[in-house]
C-alpha cells in the first residue's frame, strides 16, 4: 500500500440540494485544516460541489465520505468518495468529455471535477448506482 489513511472518516448525507452546501463547507474546513493554498482550496470546494450536486440530482441521493490521507513521502491530501444507488451513468466516457462544452447537467460536473482534482476514479453500473472518488494532494 502506497498510502495510509489516518482512519478518520466523515460522512455527509446528500439527500437534498441544501446538503450540497454542507458538503462544500465541510470540504472547505478540511482543506483549510490541511493547509492548502487559496487556489487549491477553491478548486477542491468547487469539485466537491459539482460531485455533490450530481449525487443529489442524478444519483437520487447518496453520501459523501471525506478522509485525510498521507501518501508515502509524507504528502498529505484529502480524499472524497461520492456514492449513490441511482440509475447509473450510461456512457461515462461521453459524460467526462461533455465537461468541456457549454452543455449543462451531468457532463460539466464530472469532467470539471476531474480537471480540478489530482486523482479521479469513477465506477458506475446501470440500475445499481455510481461511485466517484477524488483526491488532491498538497
Amino acid at each position, binding site marked *: 500500500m502506497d498510502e495510509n489513511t489516518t482512519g478518520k472518516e466523515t460522512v455527509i448525507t446528500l439527500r437534498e*440540494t*441544501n446538503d*450540497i*452546501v454542507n458538503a*462544500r*463547507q465541510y470540504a*472547505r474546513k478540511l482543506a483549510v485544516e490541511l493547509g492548502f493554498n*487559496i*487556489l487549491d*482550496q*477553491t*478548486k477542491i*470546494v*468547487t469539485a466537491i*460541489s*459539482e460531485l455533490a*450536486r450530481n449525487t443529489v440530482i442524478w444519483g437520487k441521493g447518496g453520501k459523501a465520505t471525506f478522509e485525510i490521507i498521507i501518501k508515502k513521502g509524507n504528502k498529505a491530501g484529502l480524499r472524497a468518495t461520492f456514492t449513490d444507488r441511482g440509475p447509473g451513468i450510461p456512457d461515462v466516457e461521453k459524460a467526462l468529455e461533455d*465537461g*468541456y*462544452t*457549454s452543455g*449543462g447537467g451531468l457532463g*460539466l*460536473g464530472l*469532467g*470539471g471535477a476531474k*480537471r*480540478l482534482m489530482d486523482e479521479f476514479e469513477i465506477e458506475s453500473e446501470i440500475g445499481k448506482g455510481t461511485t466517484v472518488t477524488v483526491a488532491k494532494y498538497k
Partner: protein
Amino acid sequence: MERIPILKMGDYLLVSIQIDMHDKLAMDLKNDLAEKISKTSAKGVLIDISALEVVDSFIGRMLGSMSEISKVLGAETVIVGMQPAVAITLVELGLSLKGIHTALNVEKGIKLLDELVKLQ
C-alpha cells in the same frame, strides 16, 4: 426567510451576494431580480460577487441566466469583483460565461453600465 437584498441606485439595481447560497436562495434571487427590474424599469444591474469564495457550475449558470433575463427585460448586467481563484477555477471547470459583462470592481462596473446603457 432570508433573501438577498436588491438595492436601487438611480436607474440601476445593485445586488451584493455575501453568502454561500443554497439552491432556493439562488432561485429566489433570480425571481426577485426579474420582478424588481420590471417594477422599477431599471436600466442596469450590478451583481457584486467579491465575497463569493466559490462559484460552481450551478451558480455560474445562474449568474449567466440572470444576465440574460435582465437583458430581455431591458437592463444590462455587469458582474463585478470575481476573486482570482474563482476565475481560474471557473475557467478550469469549462465555464467561460461568454456574453456576460464583467468588471473588476463596483466603480468600474458602474462605468461599464453607463457605457452599455448609452448604447441601448
